[in-house]
């Protein structure tokens, strides 16, 4: 049996049936990592010793006949933006190259207490700023389907790790598309939760009003199971309202007869890849076969979302990055002549180009005399984008769109042109501004590269998009396609 290829639910069942041990599952993942990760480079830091300790603890409980947490003994990869006690956490930034946090992010604490096996920390665009993982301060990650292409980003390492069976599931973050786009590029499932559904405590802030935490999985049923444990209010994150957490694994079993799915005309634009367009339309047909009703809708302010995002995001970035001053943690260059030199030299050496660009755009947008023209205007446009969705959801239950205008592009192709990179997020950003949830699932191959579809749900209605995604996967086998690793 090729243990690394199992899904989370298969691993869950097999542990209980004593078909294999957690130690064997962990070993299978590390063997896969040793075989392929020198080419894919999904991981920044491995946690081998602790992982085996965690696995052996789970195996001992099984041997004694004790009951297990559903996530217990199952190996997971974690994006290196989540703080992990005694495990280096860099955010893929040189400024935190040697940072070892003394505390766990709330979701990491949940996983540790569940007895999960933490394999290691995965690569990302520095502080989650980017869409290709090329902005990592350490190295770019390759797409497991074609090593010359990007895995998407910013959670590219977490997506590539699951796509290459170097972990059963993983954690990522999504601010403007950072889970949905890499899930699409790597041919796996990924969920961006509604803003506030999962605690952000202990996850380094990029755009505080938009940042969300979510899982990548090999299928939607796995994601539904994980979400039951990740979701919910946290006293350490004041933006998590006490909204009831659904029993996602049960909810997804219902069929989708009569479900109303909106197809927004603004998401089928001039210049998008013909294969991608066809993939989404084929998926719509499949949903109709499953009993859903597909309805044409309009989200008229879609075209403004990217512009609003690239004011709001850098503005919040410029504020969030101010904490890196070389005083309390991280890189500190102290050979200059005064305090100002410490700031300037530490930040110069510690931050990469994209981080500096966003800090400068944000500083400019928030500087005296420009606030109304940029930040306030962008927040008003954010209202218009949000209202578009509110109107649409009076008519439909979920919205179906492409994830990205084209499949994964080549490493280096867009790195010199930040604006071209930003426009890759055109289909994922609007839902982020509205705080909605979005699920990205594989829906076919175009030129031998995976292409995903995006299902957008109302705030806190994760259960409906997960249900539609799961029913789609029961009726199709796109999610079973795996890259041929070399």
């Amino acid at each position: 049996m090729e243990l690394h290829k199992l899904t989370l639910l298969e691993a869950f069942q097999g542990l209980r049936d004593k078909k294999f041990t957690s130690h064997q599952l962990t070993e299978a993942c590390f063997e896969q990592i040793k075989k392929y990760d020198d080419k894919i480079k999904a991981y920044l830091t491995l946690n081998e010793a602790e992982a085996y300790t965690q696995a052996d603890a789970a195996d001992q409980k099984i041997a004694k006949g004790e009951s297990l947490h559903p996530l217990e003994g199952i190996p997971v990869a974690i994006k290196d933006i989540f703080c992990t006690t005694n495990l280096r956490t860099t955010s893929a930034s040189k400024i935190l190259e040697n940072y070892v946090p003394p505390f766990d992010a709330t979701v990491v604490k949940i996983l540790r207490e569940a007895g999960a096996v933490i394999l290691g920390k995965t690569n990302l665009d520095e502080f989650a700023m980017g869409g290709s993982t090329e902005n990592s301060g350490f190295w770019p990650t390759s797409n497991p389907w074609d090593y010359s292409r990007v895995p998407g980003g910013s959670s590219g390492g977490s997506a590539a790790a699951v796509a290459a069976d170097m972990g059963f599931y993983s954690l990522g973050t999504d601010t403007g598309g950072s889970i949905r786009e890499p899930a699409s590029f790597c041919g796996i499932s990924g969920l961006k939760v509604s803003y506030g559904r999962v605690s952000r405590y202990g996850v380094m802030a990029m755009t505080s009003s938009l940042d969300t935490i979510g899982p990548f999985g090999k299928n939607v049923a796995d994601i539904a199971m994980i979400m039951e444990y990740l979701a919910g209010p946290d006293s350490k994150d004041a933006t998590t309202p006490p909204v009831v957490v659904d029993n996602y694994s049960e909810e997804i079993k219902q069929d989708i007869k009569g479900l109303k799915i909106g197809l927004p005309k603004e998401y089928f634009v001039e210049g998008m890849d013909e294969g991608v367009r066809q993939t989404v339309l084929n998926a719509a047909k499949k949903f109709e076969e499953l009993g859903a009703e597909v309805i044409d809708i309009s989200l008229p302010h879609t075209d403004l979302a990217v512009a609003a995002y690239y004011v709001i995001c850098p503005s919040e970035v410029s504020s969030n990055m101010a904490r890196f001053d070389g005083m309390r943690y991280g890189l500190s260059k102290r050979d200059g002549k005064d305090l100002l030199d410490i700031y300037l030299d530490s930040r110069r050496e510690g931050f990469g180009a994209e981080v500096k660009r966003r800090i400068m755009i944000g500083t400019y947008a928030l500087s005296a005399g420009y606030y109304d023209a940029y930040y306030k205007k962008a927040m008003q446009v954010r209202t218009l984008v949000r209202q578009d969705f509110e109107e649409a959801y009076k008519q439909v239950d979920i919205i179906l769109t492409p994830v990205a205008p084209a499949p994964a592009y080549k490493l280096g192709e867009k790195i010199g042109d930040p604006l071209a990179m930003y426009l890759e997020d055109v289909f994922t950003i609007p839902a982020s501004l509205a705080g909605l949830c979005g699920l990205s699932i594989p829906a076919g191959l175009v030129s031998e590269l995976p292409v995903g579809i995006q299902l957008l749900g109302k705030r806190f209605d994760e259960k409906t998009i997960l249900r539609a995604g799961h029913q789609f996967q029961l009726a199709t086998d796109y999610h079973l396609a795996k890259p041929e690793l070399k």
Partner: protein
Amino acid sequence: MKLSQEEVEHIAKLARLRVTSEETEKYAGQLSGILEYVEKLAAVDTANIEPTSQVTGLTNVTREDEIIESGISEELVACAPQHQDGYVVIPKIFENK
């Protein structure tokens, strides 16, 4: 909005970033491109539109004002590049005249 190299230098100074003159030139082009793109917001009529700063609908989330020990004060201070006796060491800010 076209940014001059002087403006980029000024923004970098405000943002506590040190940039070389070559970088200033590169950033002037890239930042101008981004700002030109976001200019499209200016054409939108937002006269009576409330800004959305967050979407939770929550306001003034509070808790009882009681002390909860983190239990990791020493470890947190130990993260600082320089620390002594449980304090973070920073360079002096004021000079004796």
